[in-house]
């Protein structure tokens, strides 16, 4: 009995040291805020840029036009998808913005946004290419131009098909921002690590960080599953 009580007391003390004392929990909440800000803004950049790249690529695939832009887009995709995101982050911070005084959060948003755009682009492109060519033909047989056909007929269908894949990409992005600490941003992961270095106690802060990521991912995955079900239901109408 004493043994168990002692265990609880130890745990309580450690919990106090790691999270309560000196308001150390704030390392986690502040870090979480940064993680969410970086993720959210990167998603927006990734979506806008990714869509543009996807449209360039699929226009080239379908019509043979935009050859030059397509080469640039392909080069971009190859480089971004062929190198680790940490390396991209370091290069953008130390090389590209090395001599500028710029908010590190902005650097992270740019780096993760550019990275995510490459993956979004390929997801959206696969969605566009999956739409039957008859839809393009029906559009142009009615006199709609390529861009109008794209906006009103192809993209709405393509987007619906790839929505779950896009959502999954953003879940991955949320986890990938955990390398922000490499440029000394206090994100969630870094927050846990700071507590560890203060208390010389690894278990509790790191497990806490892991649990927070896990809960967020599980929640988002739950939303994706719901979304997929709703889309499937719409298909049956």
């Amino acid at each position, binding site marked *: 009995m004493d043994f168990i009580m002692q265990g609880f007391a130890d745990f309580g003390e450690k919990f106090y040291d790691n999270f309560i004392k000196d308001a150390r929990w704030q390392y986690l909440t502040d870090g979480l805020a940064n993680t969410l800000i970086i993720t959210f803004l990167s998603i927006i950049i990734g979506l806008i840029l990714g869509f543009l790249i996807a449209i360039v690529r699929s226009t080239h695939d379908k019509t043979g036009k935009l050859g030059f832009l397509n080469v640039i887009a392909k080069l971009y995709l190859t480089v971004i998808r062929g190198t680790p995101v940490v390396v991209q982050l370091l290069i953008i911070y130390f090389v590209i913005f090395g001599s500028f005084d710029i908010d590190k959060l902005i650097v992270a948003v740019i780096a993760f946004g550019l990275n995510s755009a490459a993956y979004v682009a390929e997801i959206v492109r696969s969605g566009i290419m999956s739409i*039957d060519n*008859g*839809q393009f*033909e*029906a*559009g*142009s*047989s*009615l*006199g*709609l*131009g*390529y861009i*109008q056909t794209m906006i*009103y*007929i192809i993209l*709405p*269908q393509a987007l*619906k098909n790839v929505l779950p894949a896009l959502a999954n990409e953003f879940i991955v992005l949320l986890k990938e921002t955990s390398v922000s600490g490499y440029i000394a941003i206090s994100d969630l992961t870094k927050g846990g690590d700071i507590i560890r270095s203060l208390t010389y106690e690894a278990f509790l802060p790191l497990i806490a960080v892991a649990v927070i990521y896990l809960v967020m991912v599980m929640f988002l995955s739950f939303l994706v599953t719901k979304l997929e079900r709703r889309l499937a239901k719409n*298909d*049956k*109408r």
Partner: protein
Amino acid sequence: MINVNNLNKSFNELHVLKNITETIEKGEKVVIVGPSGSGKSTFLRCLNLMERPTSGEIFVDGVDITRLPEKEVNLIRRRMGMVFQHFNLFPHLTIKKNITLAPVKLKLMTQEEADRVAEELLAKVGLSDKAEQYPNQLSGGQKQRIAIARSLAMNPEIMLFDEPTSALDPEMVGEVLNLMKELADDGMTMVVVTHEMGFAREVASRVMFMDEGMIVEQNTPAEFFANPRSPRLKEFLSKVL
């Protein structure tokens, strides 16, 4: 209305259309028949440049459309309705929106005007009750009737039909052919690629037989079916009739 001059179309090594020269007058109902792979669909699809000819000219009211820039080609396509074998309705839009999308987005009508036109057309094709449904809720025959209504919303001068009944269950072929007959009676200029010989006999003003990328023979339907001249048409008719 349409003059085709020395039209050739090749897909890589495959020479699909060989030196076709042909005229289609306003008000004509031309039915094109022939074996699979004879080039009849490709010929039809060249008329509104769904396929780009390899060489030759296509004059629509005296203008060579093969030399027009893409923007002006779109203007020509507005005047030529096309009905596809697989309907190609827009699955993400309601039936009414399928019909009104092009006239509204091309700023030819306001949404209210287009809605009114759509209602008239739906009444014409006998599907007024389906306006707010989605294409996947309809049968094949209903889908094709909607596809025809969608083309008519653009008020075309000519309608091109690319095997409009080939993807339908047999019991639904009749409703689509009847609608096409009505259109013909209204005086619409029509070019129809089909395997429905009964339709050709009844509706066509001229029946054309294509084989191996050439127009082998053409005639009034009565003569075409009663007195085929070329051995290939005789053989074809003996198989399909």
